[in-house]
C-alpha cells in the first residue's frame, strides 16, 4: 500500500504557476504507479480546470488556487478550490466538436477535455463564496499491486 494518500499545494492564481500544479499531480500519480496515460489525463484535467479559474475566474485579480489530490478507495480525487466569483464549468455548453473547424467557436475545449478524461466532474460554491471543483477518475490498477 502507498503510505502517502494525499498531497496538496496552494499557488497564486496566475498562469505562470499552472506548471507547478501539473508537476504536483504528475509526481503523485507516478508515486502511485499509475500508467502514463492515466497520469497525463489527470494532469490535463487539473490544468484545464485551474486555467479556467485563472483566466476566467480571477481575470488578473489576486487570488489563490488550492489543489488537493487524494486516493479514496479505488478513485483518484482532484479537488481545486478558489475564491473567484462562483462559476460552474459543468454547466458550460459542450462544444460541437463535429462542426466544421471554420464554423466552430474557438474556446470551450477545456471542459470538453476534462469530461473526456475524468469519470466525475462536480462543482459547488464554497462557504466563502468561491468555487470547489472535484474531478474523479477510477485508478487504472489496484493500489499496491
Amino acid at each position: 500500500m502507498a503510505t502517502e494518500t494525499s498531497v496538496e499545494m496552494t499557488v497564486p492564481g496566475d498562469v505562470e504557476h499552472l506548471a507547478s500544479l501539473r508537476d504536483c499531480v504528475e509526481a503523485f500519480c507516478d508515486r502511485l504507479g499509475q500508467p502514463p496515460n492515466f497520469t497525463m489525463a489527470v494532469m490535463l484535467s487539473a490544468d484545464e480546470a485551474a486555467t479556467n479559474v485563472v483566466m476566467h475566474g480571477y481575470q488578473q485579480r489576486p487570488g489563490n488556487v488550492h489543489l488537493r489530490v487524494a486516493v479514496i478507495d479505488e478513485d483518484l480525487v482532484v479537488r481545486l478550490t478558489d475564491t473567484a466569483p462562483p462559476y460552474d464549468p459543468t454547466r458550460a455548453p459542450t462544444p460541437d466538436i463535429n462542426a466544421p473547424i471554420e464554423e466552430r467557436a474557438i474556446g470551450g475545449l477545456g471542459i470538453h477535455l476534462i469530461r473526456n478524461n475524468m469519470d466525475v466532474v462536480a462543482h459547488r460554491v464554497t462557504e466563502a463564496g468561491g468555487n470547489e471543483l472535484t474531478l474523479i477518475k477510477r485508478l487504472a490498477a489496484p493500489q499496491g499491486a
Partner: protein
Amino acid sequence: MAATTPSAVVVPVNDNLDAVSSPGLERRLNGLVEEGSTRLVLDLTNLRYLASAGLRTIIAAHRFAGMAGGGLHLAGLAGFAQTVVEQSGIAGRIPTFATVDEATAAF
C-alpha cells in the same frame, strides 16, 4: 528556429504547449503568415504536453494561414498529445502526417 524548405516553413514545438507557451507560438505563427509564409508545418515530434490553449492556437493558425491562401499541417504527433488532438475533434480536419517530410511534401 524555423527551417525553411521550398514549400513550407517548419516550426518545431517542443515540450509543453499550454496556457503559458501558446501566446508566444500564436504571435510567431501569425508573424510568419503576415510575412508571406502561409504554408506552415508544426513539428510536434518532441511535444510532450498539449492543453486546450495549444489546441486553440493550432486552430487559429490553421484558419489564419488558410485565409491567406496557405494552410497548416501537423507532423509527428504521438503519445498523449495525439490523444488530446483526437479528443478535440480537430484530428480529421487539420491535415496530420507522421513525418515532417510528408507534411511538407503534401502542400
